[in-house]
Each structure stands twice: as C-alpha cells, then as structure tokens.
C-alpha cells in the first residue's frame, strides 16, 4: 500500500532469537528433522535405507530447480516456467539421444543449452520488455510445454538405462555397489550449493542480484548495469533448470510430455520455506536447500502414513501460503 511517509526502517540492533537470516534456516532444519522423525515413528516401512535413497532421488531435480529459481526470486521476480521447462529440455535432449543416436554427452549439452536459451528469453521479457515476471514466465511455461510435446511427437522419451550404452550419466547420481544404491548425486548437489552460495555472496552477479531485489532504482543510480544482471538472474535459473532436467532424466526411467506442471511449486515453495522473501533481496542458497527437503520429505513420506501423493500438492500449497504470510508479518513488524 502506498504510504506517504517515506519508509524509514527504524533499525533495531537487538536481534530476535530467531533471526531472519540464520534463524529461519535453523527452524527449517528443525522441521526437516521433526518430519523425518515423525514419519519414522508412524511407519516402520519408512525406516529403511531405500526410503532415504528415494527422498534423495526426489531432492536432486527439485533442489537444482530451487537453486536456480532463487535468483529470479531474489530480484523480486519469479520463474514459473521451470517445471514444464525441465520436461521440455529433457525431452529434446533425450530425443536427440534416443532417436537420432547422438552421444549422451551432446544430448546433455543441448538440454542445458536450451535451458539457458529460455533463461535468456525470460530475462529479456521481464528485464528489458518490462512484462510482469509471473505473466511472462506463465507464457514460456506453456510454450515450453507445447514445444517439448511437438518435438517428441507426444511419446515419452526413455533416456538410456544404466546398463545400456550411453547410460553412464545415470551413474552420476546413483551407483550400484554390492547390489546397494549409493546416492552420490547428493555430493554433487552439495557441491553446487557451495558454489552457488559463493556466487550469491561473493561475486558481482550475486551482489547485484540482491541489490536489484532490494532497491532496483538505487542500484541503477550506483552505476550498475541493472538490465544485464537482471537478465542474468533468469539465465542462471534457466541453466539450473537444464541441470535439473538431466537429474530428472537420470533418476526416472522415462520423461513424459505434458508433465512437469506443478514442479515449479515444489521448487518455489522450497525456496520460500527456506527464507527467500517474496519481495526480493533476502534469501540464501543454503536456506533454499533446506527448504527443498521439507518438500521432498512430504512427497516421499505422506504415502507411508496412508495419504496419497496428492495430499502433498495440497499441503505444499498451504505451506507456501503460510511461509509467505510469515514473511509478510515479519516485514510488518520490521516496518514499525
């Protein structure tokens, strides 16, 4: 609401116990642990190694999308095209591998490249053409969905299995050892979290992403090429959606055209639960990463306690609203 009095953030130096930056992350980790214990207590089936592996399986692509979408969110924008985008990039890359005998490496490269291209498109629509972010990316959401289906002609794409030639990429995320699945993908994700935390906190790209979300005009007046960095946030998002497409293709046997809608809620929900503010400028990659596990636990855990996976959609929706409300209430309190 436009208020005449110039917003003077009356700063207070006494930090609350649950401080926003470190605090929310802390709470989210507690929630993850609590959820895990809850599911373990309620279902003996849940207390198995395979469950942990399956939670991690889900976490890869959601985490990658969430890391990516954190950047547009930090600029006070959003990218709704990541869900259908993921499927589209994976379909096109897989199509080239399966139907045109491209080497897997080339297919992977194309997948990521298309992600980047759509990142550029989204960035231009939002930063250069001034379209509302949710609307522009809602359109690219539909466009990627159509495009993926058109390229593959409506049929699912089975990326090569681990035992087939060219199936090596599946071992990036999971290797078999003595009949046991070792989820090494987790290591890569952690590594990427560390790298992107560095990018966000210690490079110009990250600094200006936060600055744009904090006060775009002041950033521009400081002589920063705001347009470039604004577009770049979406490019990062596109790149990570490309990576997420690879993770998705590696974990699941086939990729179905027309699917993918709703993935974006998991990713954006994860980011917001992890402390990314809807109004931009505040958030962290580690927080997002922690938030993603809340989603993944719900996704895998609910069926164990007798609720279908559909409940996860409902609960995620409600959790998203709850986290945004907490963010709004926090800001109201700070504004006073």
């Amino acid at each position: 609401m436009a208020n005449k009095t110039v917003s003077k953030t009356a700063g207070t130096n006494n930090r609350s116990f649950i401080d926003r930056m470190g605090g929310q992350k802390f709470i989210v980790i507690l929630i993850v642990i609590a959820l895990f214990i809850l599911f373990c207590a309620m279902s003996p089936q849940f207390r198995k190694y395979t469950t942990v592996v399956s939670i991690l399986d889900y976490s890869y692509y959601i985490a990658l999308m969430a890391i990516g979408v954190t950047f547009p969110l930090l600029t006070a924008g959003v990218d709704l095209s990541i869900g259908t985008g993921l499927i589209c990039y994976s379909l096109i890359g897989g199509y080239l591998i399966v139907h045109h005998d491209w080497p897997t490496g080339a297919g992977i490269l194309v997948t990521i490249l298309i992600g980047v291209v759509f990142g550029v498109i989204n960035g231009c629509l939002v930063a250069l053409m001034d379209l509302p972010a949710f609307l522009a990316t809602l359109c690219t959401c539909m466009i990627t969905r159509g495009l993926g289906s058109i390229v593959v002609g409506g049929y699912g794409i089975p990326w090569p299995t681990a035992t087939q030639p060219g199936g090596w990429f599946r071992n990036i995320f999971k290797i078999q050892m003595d009949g046991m699945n070792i989820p090494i993908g987790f290591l890569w994700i952690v590594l990427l979290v560390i790298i992107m935390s560095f990018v966000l906190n210690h490079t110009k790209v990250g600094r200006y992403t936060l600055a744009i979300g904090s006060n775009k005009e002041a950033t521009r007046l400081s002589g920063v090429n705001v347009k470039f960095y604004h577009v770049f946030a979406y490019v990062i998002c596109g790149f990570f959606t490309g990576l997420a497409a690879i993770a998705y293709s590696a974990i699941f046997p086939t990729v179905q055209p027309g699917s993918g809608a709703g993935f974006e809620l998991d990713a954006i929900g994860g980011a917001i639960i992890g402390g990314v503010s809807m109004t931009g400028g505040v958030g962290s990659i580690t927080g997002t990463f922690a938030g993603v596990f809340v989603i993944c636990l719900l996704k895998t855990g609910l069926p164990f306690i007798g609720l279908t996976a559909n409940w996860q959609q409902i609960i995620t929706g409600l959790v998203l609203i709850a986290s945004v409300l907490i963010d709004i209430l926090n800001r109201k309190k700070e504004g006073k």
Partner: protein
Amino acid sequence: MEAIKQNPLVKKVGFNRIVLCIVLILMYALFCALTGGNFVGSSRILSALNYAYFLGFLSLGVTFVIATGGIDFSIGPVMFCCALIAGFSLVTYGVPLPAALLISLVIGIGFGIFNGYLVAYWSVPSFITSMASMNIAKGLASVFTRTQSVNWPQANDTANGWYRYLVRYNDIPVGLIILIVVAVICAVILNKTKMGRYILCLGSNKEAVRLSGVNVKKWEMMAYILCGLLVGISAIFYVGAYTTVQPGYGDQYNNEAIAGCVMGGTSMAGGLASISGTIIGVFIISLLQEGILALGINKNYQLIITGIIVIVAVFSDVVARRRKN
C-alpha cells in the same frame, strides 16, 4: 489511421474490438480456405463454440480479477476441480444433479474466497495465491476422485442427462445464449454497478479510492469471488460439452483465458477492462483451437501460439502505458 480511430462510430464500438472482429473473420476465412471448405460446416462451428463456452466463463471471471490489478491463474485447475468433485459426487455418491451443479459453484466460490481473502486482506501477491490454489485444486480433486477420471452422464441418460441441454438442445446452441446473457450481466456489473465501479477504480488507483472512504478490501475480494463463481459455471459447461474430466490437468486453460482477456483490451496494470473484448478474444482462441484441430496440426502449437499472443498483447499494453507517461 488516426482518422479512422477518431471516427465517432469507431470510437463508440472501440477500435480494438473492430480489429479483433476483423481478425476473427479473417481467421475463419483462412481456415475455410486451408481446409478446402471443410470448415464451413456447422459441426466445426458448433465444436468451436463448445470450446468457447467454458473458456468464455473462465475468461469473464479472470477479467474482473485483472481489472483490480491482480491475476488468477488457478482458474483452469479449479474448474477441473469443480467438475471432478461435483461429477464424482453425482456418479459415485448418487447426489442429485441439481445438487451436483450447486457443488460445482460452491467450490468455485470457495476458491474465490480463499484467493480474494489472502490477496485483499493479507496483501499476499496474487500470483502466489494462484500458484497455491492451482496445486491445492489439483490435489483436492485427485484425492477426492482417487486419481480417476470422472464421466458425467451422457445426453441419453434420461434422469441426469438434461444438464447437457445447457450446452446444446437439438442443434440449438443454448450455451451460446447463456454465455451471451452472462456476458451481458458481467458487462452490467462492470459498468453499471457500484461493484464494477469500485473494482475498476481500485485497479486504477487503490489508495485514492481508499482515501475516499471506500472499503477497498471488501471490493477487491468480491472480484475474486465473482471470478470463482464464473469458474464454477464454466466447469458445468466443460462437462456439458465433453463429459469426461481427468484429474491433474487444466493448466493450459489458464493461459487461454488470460489470452482472451488481454487481447480484448483488459490491461494487466488494472483499471481497464472490456467484457465485449474478452468475449471476442475468447472466440478467436476457440476458433484457433478448432482450426488447428481441423488442419490436423499438433494441438501443442495452440499452447505456443497462445503464449505468444499473451506476450504480444501485454507488451503492447506496456508500450502504450510507457508512451502515455
């Protein structure tokens, strides 16, 4: 060009709407030519109209929300949610048909209240409530129907088939009549009532309206509730035309409904809306859908074309506003 725009008759009807009508006619001619006359038949038209009915109600609903400066892209999935839960109650639980139709409306209104309350009273960004509602609607419908598609009764079902007459009765396009009537009612609400006045004005300058002593929160929420009601109606017309609904879908209609709306001259910035424009926009989208079908083109092109239409329409609105300032 300017001279045409300044013509009093053109001004009265609206330049934008005249252009849209010409586009509509040209599209029709184009499809007729491309399909070798196969498009002329009434079956194609009726089929396009079937699409226009439910899309029309969706688009009318979202017009009110966009007029307040907000957005609702949960309408497609919510429409499916209404159709699924109402249909499942009807088919599996044996709820009487009128009650089932009422359930559809109530669910639509319920989502409208949910979105509207959060947006108006809590200042939650409308795209967040849309995103949440979209998934809640999908989840709810799937849970309720146990992830099975629902087949509403056929027309020959003597007891419960009559709802299909709402769409068509012996080749009379009843749906068209109802759509036009509802559109007229919407136009009256938007242009002749307090509610419409407040919705348009708060979309244009919410603070000035608040400082005039108007309860802006209430009226903003009303726009979402009205949208919800129209979504509930659209669900009835969807099943009236197609009978089968599958859980987990409905997203693509969001974009088509928004496309109809922004093409018709409703501004994403709020404050400016045209019901007649929305209806013509909906006809264009429906005809496009039917044409693509008739030409045997992959229906996924529809998604891409609609996406581009929205981008172009909204961008031209952005440019127009930029030029004004």
